[in-house]
Every structure is written in C-alpha cells, then in structure tokens.
C-alpha cells in the first residue's frame, strides 16, 4: 500500500494518461476502422483491394514496430516536424496516438466486416424486394443484425487497445506502463509497484469482459 500512496504523484497522472490515450485512440480507431470496413465491402474492386492491402499489412506488423516507426523514423520524412509541437510530451503523445489508431483501425475494420458478413444475403434481398432504399436497408435491416455480431468482438478489440497503450512506455509517453521504470529511481520495490499497475488493469478490464460475455450470451440466444 505504501508504494502506491507514497508515489501517488506518479500513479495518478500515469493512470489518467492511460485512460486518456485509450479514449482518444478508441474513438479514432472506431472511425477509421469503420471507414476501412466500408472500403472492404464496397462494390468497386479497386476500393476493396485498397482496404484489404491496408488490413493485411498492418495486421501482420508488430505494434511495437509501428510505434518505433512513428517515434523515430516518421519525423525524418519531414511531413510533420517535431519542433512544431509546443512541448516534447505533445510530440511523443501524438506519435503514440497515431500508432495506436492506425494499428487498431485494421482490427476494428475486420470486426465490422465480419459482422456485416454474418447477415444472410436473403435479408438484404428481401428488403430490396420490399422496395427499401439502400439507407433504409442498412439502418433497419442489416446494421441492427450485424451489430449483435459486432459488439462482443469489438469489445475484445477495445480491451486489447487499452492494454496496448502500455507499449508507449518505451517511447517516452508517460502512462501506467512507465510508472514502474520511474519507481526504480526512487528506490522503491518494482515488483510491488507493478502489482498495483496490474491491479489497475484488472479492475478496468474485468467489467468490460463480464459485459462482453453477457451480451454475447444474450444475443446468441436471440439470433
């Protein structure tokens, strides 16, 4: 308990930064991932290929490498210069956000796409036969059904995203993952310090997992 209370100045901002990183990259990756999914189900082969290429490349690259690229290599291309950010923290945080969003979007895209694919073709054909427009079909027939298949795996993806924010520890972004590295300077026990961090994640992740399980169960019966 002492390790936590004596170092609240590390733990407080660390946990807050983790939550903030998570929320921003969650919104970002959901938006980008959905756009990518639209590409992947588009009726134009060219657009589909673009979406597929992106997903294949990103899904097979380690997130640590994506972080490495954005922190160390990307500035060399001089598209955005690090000096244009007000503080050092702002630059490294944006690099981390870019890595998390671009990486997670590929997984969000796959979840959305496989969700849409679970809707039987007959459903769409029937709605077209009834004379529904494309928008009406999406809004009242396909999406409500796809949503049930999308939400549980999407929650897994988001849980993974939350945990992945800790990789930023190696890339000068202060968050829960980097608390322990700072603790050792203060001569505190790293093990106990890390156990508190682990507990923090268990407390955040467990309710999400339980909710995911219950949704999965409830909706699998309804189908």
């Amino acid at each position, binding site marked *: 308990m002492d390790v936590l209370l004596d170092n609240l100045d590390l733990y407080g901002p660390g946990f807050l930064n983790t939550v903030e990183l998570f929320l921003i990259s969650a919104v970002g990756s959901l938006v980008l991932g959905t756009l990518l999914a639209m590409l992947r189900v588009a009726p134009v082969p*060219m657009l589909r290929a673009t979406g597929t290429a992106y997903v294949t490349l990103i899904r097979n690259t*380690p997130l640590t490498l994506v972080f490495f690229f954005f922190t*160390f290599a990307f500035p060399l*291309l*001089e598209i955005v210069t690090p000096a244009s950010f007000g503080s050092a923290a702002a630059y490294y945080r944006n690099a981390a956000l870019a890595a998390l969003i671009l990486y997670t979007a590929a997984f969000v895209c796959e979840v959305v796409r496989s969700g849409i694919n679970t809707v039987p073709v007959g*459903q769409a054909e029937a709605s*077209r036969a009834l004379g529904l427009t494309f928008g009406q079909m999406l809004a009242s027939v396909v999406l409500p059904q796809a949503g049930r298949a999308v939400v549980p795996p999407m929650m897994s993806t988001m849980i993974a995203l939350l945990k992945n924010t800790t*990789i930023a520890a190696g890339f000068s972004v202060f968050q829960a993952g980097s608390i322990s590295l700072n603790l050792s300077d203060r001569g505190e026990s790293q093990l106990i310090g890390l*156990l508190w961090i682990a507990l923090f994640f268990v407390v955040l992740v467990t309710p999400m997992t339980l909710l995911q399980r219950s949704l999965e169960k409830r909706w699998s019966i309804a189908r």
Partner: protein
Amino acid sequence: MSAVLFDVPGPRARIRHRLYAVIGTAAVVGVIGFVVYRFWVTGQFSAEKWSWPQYEFVQLQLLSALGNTLRAFAFGALFALLFGAIFAAGQLSDHKIIRVPSMLIVELFRAIPLVVMIFMFHYGLSLGAPVYSVVVALTLYNGSVLAEVFRAGVLSLPRGQSEAAYAVGMRKSQVMRLVLLPQAVRAMLPAIISQLVVLLKDSALGFLITYEELLNEAQRIGRAFEFGRPLVPVTIVVGAIYIAMCLLLTWLATYLEKRNRRDKKVIELEKKPAEDVIAAAV
C-alpha cells in the same frame, strides 16, 4: 463477398462504380506518390542509407536477431499451447476446486497487459536474461487466450462425442485427452494460428527490455552513424520480414483448414465460433 449490401449493378451503377474506381485509384496513387516523394526529397533512397545490407557482419547480426525472434516464438508457442490445453481442461473440470482457480488464472492473465507482465518478470522478479521474461510472459498471456479458444472448441462439439466415449468405458481424462481436445483443436485451428501470429508479433515487445530480437537489431542498425542513421530503410526491411513471417503462418492456417475440410473425420459445427475470435485477436 459483399453480396449482402449491394444488388447486381445496372448500367448506371456500373458507370458510377467505374468513376469511384478512378477516384479511388487517384487517391491511393496520390498518397503513395506523396510518401515516395517525401522519401526521395529527404534522401531515404540514398546509397549511403542503403549500404548496410551489404556488410557481412550486419547480415549475420540480422540473421541471429531473426533467430532470437523465432526462438522466443517457438518456446512461447509451445508452452502457450501446453498452458492452454491444461487450463482449458481445468476450466471444464467437474470439480469446483479445479474449475474456479483455472478460470480465475485465465481471466487474470488476460487482463494484465503483456508489457506489465514482461516488466514484472524482468525488473520485478529479476528472472535473468531477457529471453526468459519474454517467453514466460508470452506463455502466460497467449496460453490464457488459447485456453479460452480450446474451451470454446470443446463446448462447440456435439454432446454425442463425449457420450459415446463414456459409453465405451473411457475415463474422464481419456475422454478429454483422446476425444474432445483433438477435435476441438481441429475445429479451432484458424483461431489458434491467428493467436500464434499475435504471439509472433508480440515477441517484438522484447525490444523494451533489450532482448536481442529483430526490432532491437533494427534500432541498432538505425542509429549507426556509419550508415547515415538509416532509420527509415531499416524499419521498412524489418517490417517486411515480420509481414512475410506472419503471412507464412496465416498461409499455413488456410492450408490446414482446406485440408481439414477434405477430411471426413472433422465434424461440421453448427455455428462457427472461430471467426469472431480471429477478428478480435489483436
């Protein structure tokens, strides 16, 4: 593939689609062109920055780093599969005293970020050489996910399988070992392989505790003054190596699945739980 959303296009839709294709192509070519242009302008294609792959010593170092990545992957995968099988059986046990702790352990290791686990073993418990911490952490995390996958696989088998096994006089452990797990593994093969791809990628986290794996070698080459600090070229090359390795694994999965489908011994499951799991494997 996208037959759900769209009807067969008519003549006007076809023209519209062609227009989209042109716009899409232009956009993609534009983005790629811009990036290549930036590469060119900032000298990323210069001979100096690409001189490093020619040196024999660099090649040998890269090979040994690749070997270390594969070593962490091989041990991690082996132990994770074992851990998964044991804890899947534990979760399905009839005895509460085994079932509850198994479930708790699996949930616990799924909830803790891999980075925190690796730090815990390396800095907290001082396991020694970084490779141990990496392998143990990869085992615990991926093993827990695999335990869930195996469990889902066993639960998705028809009840007749275990009933028939009991009817011929098998013991509980025999039913699990000889009848249920082998079939569950086959049914869940795509999910298992995609988790192994995750494991392979996560071995790159060893970078954070200076394990001499591929990414660590990339930063070592990338910072070398002698080659003009080729950070961009080296990221591209190492990224390509990772992508190639993961694609090979995925290709193996599709190959095995195809072979499986031809095999009559595999039971067609009513619902395919595999797809959700694959999509969610991050």
